[in-house]
């Protein structure tokens, strides 16, 4: 579980974490705007946890704790929650790393259009 995943390491290295972004743009919201959608994602995943390889609530949180204290110890919350979830899904083979990389590029292109 603690093996590094390149595409996620690149995201960590770019460090667009909310405290940095909020300070840069003068925003006072304590958490990033994607946080509630992430909460919805976690709840929806928990509901689907009977499926093969999908982590259940406890496994998801255990993996988040482990990864947040090790591989992603430099990330603040909730960035560590998000990246740990991505890590779990890639490590468990639910999402393929190349597929994720491709999707990140296409979404960025779409949002910046």
């Amino acid at each position, binding site marked *: 579980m603690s093996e590094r995943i390149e595409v996620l390491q690149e995201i960590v290295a770019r460090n667009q974490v909310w405290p940095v972004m909020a300070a840069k743009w003068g925003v006072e919201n304590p958490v990033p705007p994607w946080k509630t959608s992430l909460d919805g994602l976690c709840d*929806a995943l*928990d509901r689907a946890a009977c499926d093969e390889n999908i982590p259940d609530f406890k496994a998801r949180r255990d993996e988040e704790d482990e990864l947040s204290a090790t591989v992603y110890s430099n990330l603040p919350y909730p960035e560590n929650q998000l990246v740990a979830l991505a890590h779990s899904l890639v490590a468990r083979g*639910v999402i393929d790393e190349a597929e994720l990389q491709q999707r990140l590029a296409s979404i960025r292109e779409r949002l910046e259009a």
Partner: protein
Amino acid sequence: MTDHDHDHDHERTVAPMVDEITDFEVLEIALRELCIEKGIFTAEEHRLMTEFAEQIGPTPAAHLVAKAWLDPEFKKLALAEPMTASKEVGVDWLHPTGWGTPSDFTAFQILADTPTVHNVIVCALCSCYPRPILGNSPEWYRTPNYRRRLVRWPRQVLAEFGLYLPDEITVHVQDSNQKHRFMVMPLRPEGTDGWTEDQLVEIITRDCLIGVALPKAGVTTNVITATRPAIHPGNAG
């Protein structure tokens, strides 16, 4: 005509926003889209859960406690039938699916403080929290640091929140789990005689409902605590 009757935009009439697409925003969308495409959940299920996450907060729990302070009969109801009492402050624990969210089970208990017993909640296993009535847990509640240490050294951890309890008060640490959720009903503080429910709600902060603070007239904000990283036993010298 007043001296304000003119046609211009006042500065900062719109709150500033981050005008930059971050990798984390993109990552959240990517995970969500891929899960939906793989049939792990539907867009509709995600929307339902996200709407739930957007509308929860600690206000209903504060109202519940304020009502209990003002009405002994409601306090009895809150302690005997917390689900029914929750409905009176607008919270249906079966929302939004008909059986609650997948991670918020519907066994709920309210722990009433007494002059000799102080309650505080934790989830030693992960971060179980009474979300429907108290909103999302604060960051520190999720940390292994709080979870591990509160159980072993409750007075020390409470002191880190600025709460020093005399020895004659017993500290009861209630561990939440995947079957049961809890919240604390603190004692009504001095100096609040004659206050209305809304006035009382102001001082019943989230921290008081977790048990890491006590309500006090004039104090309406949570304690700000630095999040301490856990020391991994495997790495400890």
